[in-house]
Each structure stands twice: as C-alpha cells, then as structure tokens.
C-alpha cells in the first residue's frame, strides 16, 4: 500500500492489519510516555484546503506521537483564480521533502490527482475529499465498532477479527457525506450489513449499487432492524436553504423524522452503540440525551482516531525509503 485514498482500496486483510496495528498503537497511548521513535526524521505535511481543526489535530497528534516532523499547510481556496494551483502546492511540498501528504480538499478526487499526477513522490493520505471519501474516519469507526461489539464486548482479544454479522445503521445526509461512502465500503469489506437511512432527497442517485439497504424510515430501522451500531451523520444547516428550496423543509421536520432523541434511544437494543463523526449539531441530528448517553462512543471515536492514524502513517512510512532516495529513483 503506497497511498490511502479510498476505503475501497483496502481488502479485508489490509483493513484488519490496520485495525490490529491501531490496537497496538492504542495500547502504547495508555503509557506515561506516549511517544514512539518510529518515524523519527520523516516529514508529514498536513495539507488542508478546507477547515477541519479536529481532523488536522488528530493527524498532527498521530504523526508527533510517532516522532515525525509535522508541517501544517493551510491553503484555503484552491482554484487557480484564487491563488496557487494544487499542482504548484504539491511541487512545493515535494521540493521541501515531504514523505507523506495528508490532504483535505473540498474537491472530490483531489487526493487521487495528487497521488497519480506525478507531482509528489510521497505517500498521500486522504483526510477527506469533497463528497467522496474519508477513509481514516471509516477505519476509526470500524475500530470503535470492533472494540465494543466483537469478542464479547472487548473482553476477548479481537486481533484478526472482522465485523461479520453486525448491522450498522448510517443516518442522515448520505448524499453529501464522504463518511457514509467510506463506511459503506469498509463495513462491507469487513462483513457487516449496512442500512442507510435518510430522507429521499439526501439519498444519492445510483445508491442501488452500493450493497447497502436504504430506508426512509428511521423508527422502522431502529425497532425492526435492531442495529448493533447507529451512526448519525452531521447535517449541515445550509443544506436547508440551498437551491430548489432545500433538501428538507425545516430543521424541526428533519429532527422529527431523522433525529436521534431519547425516545428513539430507548427503542434500541441494550448493546447498541451510538456514533457520530463530529462535529455534532446537538438538537438537530442528535439530542443531548443521545449524545451524552452511556451508549454513545463519540468521544472514544476521537481517541481511536489518533490510534488509527498512527497505524496508517506507520504502515505507509515505516520501512519505506526516505523522500530523498525516492526522488533519486
């Protein structure tokens, strides 16, 4: 594996290797000295064309815990008219000797272009591109699900295990969600069943080929589908006011139909966990009752994110040639 661009790039054994490595990384994070020397002398660039404080901090923490040098490059507004092109930015980072580029971009496919256009020789890690993919989010979600729901709720060793037999409901703005796309693919690879729940306006054309069930009715899915995990997606309030009168009539109507509140929480099986990629809109897609309930694993997702990103950086960079050598090849 040279890059991590899409959850679809991972086969079952690669995905499990990342999860197992992340478990080892997580174990080191409970020690007093959290830092490992593994990537000393390596340079990781966080190239963020879109604001995302939490994802950037997560990658930055992961890289620093592995002793890599971290450069944060915030480059909002990528279009040629506004400033430097993606190509010139990539060439600049290449010249500075980046071993890995963690890229967040508002344009779907920008990490793919960065990886294959020949502008940089470093590893490219997709930290979220447009409405396409966010593979490390899917990995940390799978990691969190495995910890809680596989191997007797975490009491047994889960190394090498997948998510076979589990049912995950993903609820909300599937149309615009890279988190949903990545999760559907990775959960499928790991043997879990996925039900997407959204109002019809937020279900993409062509979803029939995704290998997931689709429902417009959250209550039905929660009570009859008995999901093991419920993943709530962030709903951007601006979706309501967009062209065509918005994707749904009002926040209140959305919450009534698709929000996870105390009533719906009570309808869930006892073992079901509640997830959210953050940042949450409390009161819109998730109520405080649900977000703060004991079954919510939302804060844990954040800490697992660091372990998963450490694992990805480690697997992509450790043992690889240095940037200087790669350029000379």
């Amino acid at each position, binding site marked *: 594996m040279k890059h991590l661009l899409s959850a679809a790039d991972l086969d079952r054994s690669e995905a499990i290797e990342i999860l197992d490595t992340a478990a080892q990384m997580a174990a080191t994070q409970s020690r007093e000295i959290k830092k490992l020397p593994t990537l000393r002398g390596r340079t990781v660039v966080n190239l963020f064309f879109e604001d995302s404080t939490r994802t950037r901090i997560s990658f930055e923490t992961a890289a620093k815990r592995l002793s890599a040098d971290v450069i944060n490059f915030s480059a909002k507004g990528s*279009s040629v008219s506004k400033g430097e092109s993606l190509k010139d930015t990539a060439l600049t980072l290449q010249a500075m000797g980046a071993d890995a580029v963690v890229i967040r971009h508002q344009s*779907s*496919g920008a990490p*793919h272009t960065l990886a294959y256009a020949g502008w940089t020789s470093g590893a490219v890690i997709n930290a979220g591109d447009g409405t396409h993919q966010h593979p490390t989010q899917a990995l940390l979600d799978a990691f969190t699900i495995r910890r809680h729901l596989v191997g007797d709720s975490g009491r047994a060793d889960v190394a090498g295990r997948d998510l076979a037999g589990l049912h995950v409901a993903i609820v909300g703005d599937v149309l615009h969600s890279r988190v949903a796309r990545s999760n559907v693919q990775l959960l499928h690879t790991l043997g879990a069943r996925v039900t997407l729940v959204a109002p019809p306006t937020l279900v993409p*054309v*062509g979803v029939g*080929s*995704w290998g997931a069930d689709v429902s417009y009715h959250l209550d039905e899915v929660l009570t009859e589908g008995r999901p093991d995990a419920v993943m709530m997606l962030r709903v951007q309030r601006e979706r309501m006011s967009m*062209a*065509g009168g918005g994707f749904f009539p009002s926040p209140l109507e959305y919450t009534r139909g698709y929000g996870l509140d105390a009533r719906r929480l009570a309808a869930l099986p006892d073992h079901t966990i509640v997830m959210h990629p953050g940042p949450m809109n409390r009161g819109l897609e998730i109520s405080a009752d649900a977000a703060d309930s004991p079954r919510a694993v939302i804060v844990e997702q954040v800490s697992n994110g660091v372990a998963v990103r450490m694992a990805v950086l480690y697997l992509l960079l450790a043992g690889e040639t240095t940037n200087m050598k790669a350029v000379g090849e």
Partner: protein
Amino acid sequence: MTTTKYLLRAVAPLGGERVDVLIADGVVAAIGADAGTLAGSDATVVESAGLVLLPGLVDLHTHLREPGREDAETVLSGTRAAALGGFTAVHAMANTTPVQDSAGVVEQVWRLGRDAGWVDVHPVGAVSVGLAGEHLAELGAMAGSAAHVRVFSDDGKCVHDPVLMRRALEYVKAFGGVVAQHAQEPRLTENAQMHEGVVSGEIGLAGWPSVAEEAIIARDVLLAEHVGSRLHVCHVSTAGSVEIVRSAKSRGIDVTAEVTPHHLALTDELARGYDPVFKVNPPLRTAADVEAVRTGLADGTIDIVATDHAPHPREDKDSEWSAAAFGMTGLETALSVVQEAMVDTGRMTWADVARVLSSTPAAIGQVSDQGRPIAVGEPANLTLVDPAARWVVVPHEQATASDNSPFGGREMHGRVVATFLRGRATVLDGLAQDDADGSRRAAGRTETH
C-alpha cells in the same frame, strides 16, 4: 494560386466501385476512364487503391477560441487541425471573447478563416447579447454581414428562458436561419461535474442528470412546432434525448440533431480516475446512452456528427477535477471515431458517413458549395481516407494548439490521407501542405464569397 491537377487512381467514391477521379481547376473534372486521358502529364498522381473518397467534411460545431483565447487555439491552428481531420468547412462557435454577437466580430472571425485558408470558416452567431440569455443579439446584422451567418447558438450556455428561445426561433425565419440549442436546464445542473448516475454517486462528483438535457429538448421541439421554425439540437448525449427527437420527427417537427464523436465512443466510467481530460459538457454518459446515440445516428434520428472541438490550455486541465475546464478536442480524431463506432461495426456505410459528416451538416448550416455529391463539375471539396490505417493519438503532436484529446494513447481506425479545398490539397500523404510562411495565406481567396 497554382493550378495543380490531381489524379486519384482507383479510388472508391463513398466506398463504392474503384474509379479514377481527376481534380482540376477547383472542380471534379472527370470520373472514370476519361479521367486519366484528361489528366495529361502534369497531374499529380495519387495512388488510391483501397482508399475511400468522401465529400469534404463539414463540422457544425467547432470552438476556434479566437478572438480571446489564443492560448488555447487560433483560427489558424484550429483550421489546420480541421484540414488534417478531413474537414473543408467548420462552423466557429460564438463563445469567443468578445462574443460573436455582432456583425463586427463574426466578420473578423470569417476574415481570419479566409486568410488562414485551410478550411472555410462559417462563424456561428450568438443568440443573445454576450451569451447572457437576456436580449436577442443582432441576428439580422450577422446574417447580412460578409460572414453570412445562418447558424445561431449560445453554445456553452443554454437559451433557458422559454420566451427568448421562442423569439429567436421566430426571428431567424426571416433569413432562413437555425437556432442550435445547447440543451442544459441550468437549475438542474448547478455545480454539475459529470453524468448523474452510479459513478457520480460513488466517486462523489455532483451530477448532471439526463433529464436536464431532455427537458430542454422536449420544450424546444414543442416551441419549434408552435412557431413553425427550425431547431437544431447540439450534442445529444442521452437515450432519452434520442427518443424525444425521434418522436418529434415522427410528428413532423423541423428538428435536426447532432452527436459528438466522444459521445459515440466514451462513457462516464472514465471519470473514475479523476483525469479532467474526460470532463466535458454535456458529460460522458453510460454505455446504454452510447448505444442509443449510435442507434439514433444509424437510423437517421440523429442527423449529423459534429465535433464540439473544445481546446483548452494545459493549465485549465492540469488540476483537480472540479477546478478543470469542460471540453475535449476532436477535429483530428472525429472521422476515425465514426469509422470505428459506426462503419467497422457494420451500422453505417461510407455513404452514410458522407451524409452525417458532410452533406447534412452543410445543409443545416446552409453552406451551398460544401457537402456536394462527388460528380463532374462539382467543387472539389474532397477527403481521401485510408480505412485500413491504424495510428495512435499523441495529443501534443496534433495540429490543434491544445493537448486535451480524450483519445491520447488509443489506437484509431482509419486515417485522412488527403484533403482538397476547391481543388487545392490542404493535406497530402497525411501531411498539412503548409506554405513557406507556415500558413495557407490567401490561397483560394478568389473563390470565397
């Protein structure tokens, strides 16, 4: 002007019986046994056994980019590319800077074409001032200018206001013009990046739904019927559009339609690699749509093939997908694509190719001296093709000033061996016949207009 004679020996006009054809004094001077006799000793002999002779190709949809975007293409570079692709006439789309929305600008483009001398350049006039879709441009002035405009289009933008479209359809009746519509409902395609379907959903690019094209075509054929005018539909790309045009024709509505070579050959699956060379408007559709436009072209529902040659400089394509420009070049690959998709598959004959790439586009554009039968006394606008040839597209080696060919690296079927513009070889042995100064300056001028 030199008075070179060319004797095409054992050529197959429209792929039929082999005969000798003599080109002299700008016309087809003789066909058959007396061609050799009349040729005399000073004729250049072109051994043409195995080659097909077509009327010179006529493109109804070319972006030459001049004035304004000479970094992408000039009239000179674009028309030279056209000649190499077998064309003897092109219609230059109106979305230049300034826009071809006045007599002055269309005359400028027409003169640039005449000076270049590679093909006849027929400027297309804008329907609306500045392509803004608000007020009619001075269609009459453009029609009456030296450029003699007959085709009007806001191509690149849709004339989406139904009242403006109605007025344009009515107004051009006064001088026998035609409105060529770029059918794209703007609200359904805001920020659209590619065909809306399985692939767009998966790779997360905003979709350009088929219905956005079909809804406008449906509206426009009804408008054309209502006002009794003539409509041309640019670059039909969906199966549904083919159905609407077919049904309109069966109702007797005066509508013609074109398909591009790339919509005959390529699908939206190519977007998966995010290479913007495959980003085009209308977008590449599905395999079922490709099948439908091929069927439509073969059965005459779609009247013509037009290139929508849309050159862009490197920096407009060397980027992430959503920042890249829409469009692909096509003049130098069009005939090969049509051969492979339609002739080599047995769906069309070479006579059909002459119809869809020459005589019918000339008729739609009202170009009287192009797209003529291959007969004695007719102007010698001719294209000689080697259907057996195979070649690989190397975009930066093409004559167009831009490299955005979607066929780069592909092996193509058939090659243009020679192109004759009123008896003068603009292309011979597959090579552009440049003058010493690199152009065809002034050649053939006496015979135009």
